[in-house]
């Protein structure tokens, strides 16, 4: 079960960075996120998996698609340029993966061992979230509020352009 899942994840992730068309990249990313959600389920994180789909696949990626369509970003015919950079990036990325892999593999342990009762349930997560991490949780809400306001301010047209009432005011 793990290997096909991992294969799907990796292939779709590769598709994200190799696809010429941003929409295809986005769809590949959705696939990556979905298969990662399945990984989460396999690791006993049901709630995180659901959140992964709701937040990432359901909201963030739709936002991405929305922006892609809004800006009408076309396929990039010159995307093939800078081969040297790509090769170097791939080499360094591989080195990084190898290094991380080295480190992470040494910290291996079973993931199918005896989890404590209620591990990964909504209740368990809520207990930690609203216990040890309460302050961080509240701060996160502030962060989101700020982000929303910031996004609105940034993406908004200038008010004098978008307000037709001003223009139609009789002289």
């Amino acid at each position: 079960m793990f290997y096909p899942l991992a294969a799907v994840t990796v292939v779709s992730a590769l598709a994200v960075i190799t696809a010429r068309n941003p929409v295809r990249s986005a769809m590949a990313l959705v696939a990556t996120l979905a298969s990662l959600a399945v990984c989460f389920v396999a690791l006993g994180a049901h709630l995180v998996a659901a959140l992964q789909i709701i937040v990432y696949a359901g909201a963030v990626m739709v936002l991405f698609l929305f922006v892609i369509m809004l800006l009408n970003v076309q396929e990039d015919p010159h995307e093939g340029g800078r081969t040297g950079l790509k090769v170097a990036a791939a080499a360094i990325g591989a080195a990084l993966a190898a290094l991380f892999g080295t480190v992470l593999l040494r910290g291996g342990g079973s993931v199918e061992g005896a989890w404590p009762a209620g591990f990964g349930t909504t209740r368990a997560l809520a207990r930690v979230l609203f216990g040890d991490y309460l302050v961080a949780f509240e701060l996160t809400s502030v962060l989101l509020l700020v982000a929303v306001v910031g996004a609105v301010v940034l993406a908004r047209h200038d008010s004098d352009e978008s307000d037709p009432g001003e223009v139609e005011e009789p002289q």
Partner: protein
Amino acid sequence: MVESAAYLRFIVLVPLAGTVFNVLLGRRVSRAVVATVACLAVALAFATSLRAFFSLPADGALIDDAYSWIRAGSLNVDLALVGDRLSVLMCLIVTGVGFLIHVYSIGYMSHDSDVARYFAYLNLFTASMLLLVLGADLPVMFIGWEGVGLCSYLLIGFWYEDVEKAKAGMKAFIVNRVGDAGFLLGMFLLFWAMSAHGNASLRFADINAAAPSLGVATATAVALLLFVGATGKSAQIPLFVWLPDAMAGPTPVSALIHAATMVTAGVYMIARLHGLYAFAPRALHLVATVGALTALFAATVAITQNDIKKVLAYSTISQLGYMFVGLGVGAYAAAIFHLMTHAFFKALLFLCAGSVIHAMGGEQDIRKMGGLRHLMPTTSLTFLVATLAIAGVPGLSGFFSKDEILSAAFTGGHYGIWITGVATAGLTAFYMTRLLVLTFYGVYRGDPLAYGGIHESPASMTIPLSILAVLAAVGGYVGVPALLGGHNALGSFLEPVLGSHEAHMGAVVEFGLMASSVALALAGIWLAVVLYTAAPDADEQLGRRMGGAYRTVAGAYFVDALYGRVFVRGAVGWGRALWRWVDVGLIDALVNGTGTAAQRLSASVRRWATGNVADYAMSLLVGVVALVGFLVLQGLG
């Protein structure tokens, strides 16, 4: 005995207030208000000086400790004013003559467009001069010293649109800087010496008191350095060259600054420090020698000048020489006496010259004048009085003061100096009579068309002339020597400050001395009258006959040209060399090199900042790989 008198500061502050008023509001109010404020300020200063004069303690001074100026280490300098007999007398001269000249200026400057600026400068000058006179210590005097220098520069270059006049102002300023450097060095040395003797004060009283303990060498060095300052300010050899050029300024300015007051600052300063100079006999001797040489030298030059103001300028230099002779032979009171009488008659002479120039529409060449006494009777008469006074005709002020100096010189055994002085007296009588005759007597030689326009000056000018004429005539009677039945009131008045200088040779000798100088003076007058009445163009014949010698004298012995060639051109050459080799070659190269190096370096470094996020991410990635690799290796090892 010292009395506190806080009103002394108003002698300085009232003219200063006049300046402030005319600077801030002068352009907005009428000319009448400007002039009234300026004259009133000086008049008030004169009145305050009179009050100080009448409240002088019998033996002592009035002190106004206005403000503690500098407190640094052992150095204590107060912005203090001292009103003793010397300084109050000077105040009266400055404000009195100054007031008359202010009034005169109303008429003289009536056609000028920038009266407010003129009177602002004039008031500022008066304030500075009074500060110089009243200052209780050397630094305060130095402020006044620099202040009058600044005003002199500003007023010489008053008509700055004329480049020559602006240049004359700069010349005066620069030459004075040379002298000021000496003054400053002297002041520093004096402070050092005073500190070394445990009395870190620069008060005149302290200096004069401490002078004996300074040692002859130190005292001489200080005295010489300060004398350098005095030669600058008072136009003595070798720093006289600026004064003839200073005639570029308005004539009342020449009268006030370059005849009556500022140029006497050097004399006043040495008189103030007489205690110090008394212990530097060599320096004192040099003062006398320089004064005598300057007097003779300037008198010879004055004979050959054709510009009415230039003649008076060289005359001033010559008379200042007399004063230095007086100082040099230890007759400080006599020097101050001559300073006072000279202030009267030389101011009068300049003002008369101004009246003539005013009437002639700016013409200053005496060869184009003549016969003006019919057209300008008051000016002519007052000029005659002044001429007789300066020539030393007995009974007039110049006779008494000059005679006192000369007799002091002879009495002191300075026979060479005495001979020089007597010769100068003859020359003085000659060139002054020449000036008088060429200007006011004989026939008119100028532009016939302008003849009809020549007229006597207005009352605002003639009244000061008359008053000064009276002063020039009778001013000498404050110092009638005992020989002539007087008791030298001025001398005894100043005695508490300057000490007495009574050394009599006997009546016969003194009469002989007096007679010789008087005879020489009368001879000079007679010669001039005979020569120039008969032939107004006598100078040209003289010039032809004497050739190079005459040209040398007429060109003031080419001192100016020499300075120009040696110092000015040398300085310019040095400046050019420094600019080209040091400034451009070294400093600029260093600065530009630094800039260029930084630019080149950054030009190569900035390639890193491609503006492409991918490259930044790439370098970030490389860094992460390196870091993680290091950690992994460390963990594995």
